[in-house]
């Protein structure tokens, strides 16, 4: 029987990690295959594999070379990557509130101008999206979402900002995302969410998992202030709609 998929590339990331690369670009099929392999490794652990890091197009597999070698692990990963990707893998759906524009999303007006439309239309299009957490990286809880509609694709800022606020919801290139900790960013800031995707003394510490679905909804500044206080005290705020 012919293999259902083109085999991924097995790239050495030093002597203790393999990058299983499904694509060189951001593409939804690659992302689904990454998340599928990630789930297989969670359910059927391979001795010696210590952790996996999903990204848009590849799965980084950390392992202990005193327990398994590159060739043996590579072969196993290549085999597992041939398994069919379940059509309707159950995934959690989160509804996340966002205050758009003004001081919460300083780039909303500019993005509307750039795309030749109104700020309200940008917000309407952004909340209409059904997104998926493709990866979490850079800083704790920084969640990169796939599924941004073509109309909202932009080039990144010429001059990245050195500091963008905690809770920022932004767009950049073909992606949208939620950042938890203040930090540098070259993306366009549309709004702010009171939801903490990472909070140290809360259970769970990390709210979102790679593979989770996310929908945004709009709240006003007063609701933001109330929810932000509650979130500060450990409330999750985001609604889990489906599991």
């Amino acid at each position, binding site marked *: 029987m012919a293999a259902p998929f083109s085999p991924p590339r097995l*790239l*050495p*990331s*030093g*002597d*203790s*990690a393999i*990058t299983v*690369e499904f694509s*060189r*670009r*951001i593409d939804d099929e690659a992302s689904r295959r990454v998340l599928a392999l990630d789930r297989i490794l969670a359910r059927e652990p391979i001795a010696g594999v*210590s*952790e*996996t*890091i*999903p*990204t*848009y*197009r*590849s*799965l*980084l597999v*950390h392992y202990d*070379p*005193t327990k398994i*070698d*590159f*060739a043996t692990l590579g072969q196993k990963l290549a085999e597992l990557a041939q398994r069919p990707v379940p059509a309707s893998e159950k995934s959690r759906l989160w509804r996340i509130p966002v205050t758009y524009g003004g001081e919460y999303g300083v780039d909303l007006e500019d993005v509307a101008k750039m795309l030749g439309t109104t700020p309200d239309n940008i917000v309407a299009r952004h909340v209409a999206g059904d997104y998926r957490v493709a*990866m*979490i*990286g*850079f*800083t*704790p*809880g*920084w969640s*990169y979402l796939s599924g941004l509609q073509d109309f909202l694709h932009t080039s990144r800022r010429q001059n990245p900002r050195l500091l963008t606020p905690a809770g920022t919801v932004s767009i950049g290139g073909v992606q949208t995302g939620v950042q938890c*900790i203040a930090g540098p960013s070259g993306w366009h800031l549309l709004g702010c969410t009171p939801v903490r995707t*990472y909070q*140290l003394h809360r259970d769970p*510490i*990390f709210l979102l998992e*790679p593979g989770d679905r996310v929908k945004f909804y709009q709240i006003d500044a007063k609701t933001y202030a109330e929810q932000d206080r509650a979130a500060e005290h450990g409330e999750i705020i985001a609604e889990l709609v489906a599991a």
Partner: protein
Amino acid sequence: MTKLAVSSISPASSVQDGGRFGAQRYGLTPSGAMDRLGLVAANCLAGNGLFTPAIEIGPYGAAFKAREGAVRVAMSGTPRVAEIAGRTVAWDTSVTIADGETLKLGLAQGGAFSYLAIEGGLRGEPMFGSFSVNARVGLGTPFPRALQAGDELSVAAASPGPERRIDLPQAVTGPIRIVLGPQNDEFSNEAVTLFLDSEWKISATSDRMGYRLEGPVIKHLHGHNIVSDGTVNGSIQVPGNGQPIVLMSDRGTSGGYPKIATVITADFGRFAQIPAGTAFRFRAVSMEEAQLEARKFAELLRTLPDRLAAIESFDLNIEALQDANVAGVAVSAVDARTWQVSLPAGVLTQE
């Protein structure tokens, strides 16, 4: 409660252990000691578990005072002049700081980081199973930041018993070994050859997040933007300006620049210890060789406690010599590196 007070300390000094692995998929940086051999050696000397939290000391000096009791510490990693109340303390040994006394450490000599382990470790609650400081994210125990003069660390009182020394293997020298990839195909063969054949220096702007390299410009084949993927300790990424950056313990968990090669596990600590401005080279090795070296390095760390020895016998010899009234000269004649007692000819034969 016995305390170790930080009287002064080099910038870039922090509490580090083996790191917090396991949550990189949520963007959590592992952190951990830059030179694991140094951390493990110091902990062995202090009688601790191999990856017990210790103080990683940056290139400048430091001073630590014992309060409300004596504190046993141990030093390893890049050597420094060490002294307590004017008495020189040999490097790669444990030593007990008496209550009220101060251990003074000089500049790092020929490296970047030294490790001060404290017998019994440090008191505090780990975060994600680790004490390692990651100041950017506000993690670390007992302080989520670099250590500062005036900090006090709660520690165990020194146990009785002899001090220890350790016979470390001969330091590995020669080029820093790398495995090519994961994105070496983003570079021409000429660019890869230039990378391997050139002399490099570590820029002074380097830190625990990344070491910036100074050398020839390494050009990309298809531009410098790739879709972000995961990073490891020792990933060598090449940003738009063609000057490689080696990702270190406080790296971001993902990155969007092509990675030409990766420093092998066995050489990561040795690379971390190269001082800014010192010239070095890379050498590509096969995956088989890199994994063989990784296994040897893991075995070295595991068996390091077998290399310990008590210093007691020498102390007794010195006391015996003092009792025999043959000299203060004998006390200072212990060679700090070999622990051989060398005496001027004729001393022992004196009447």
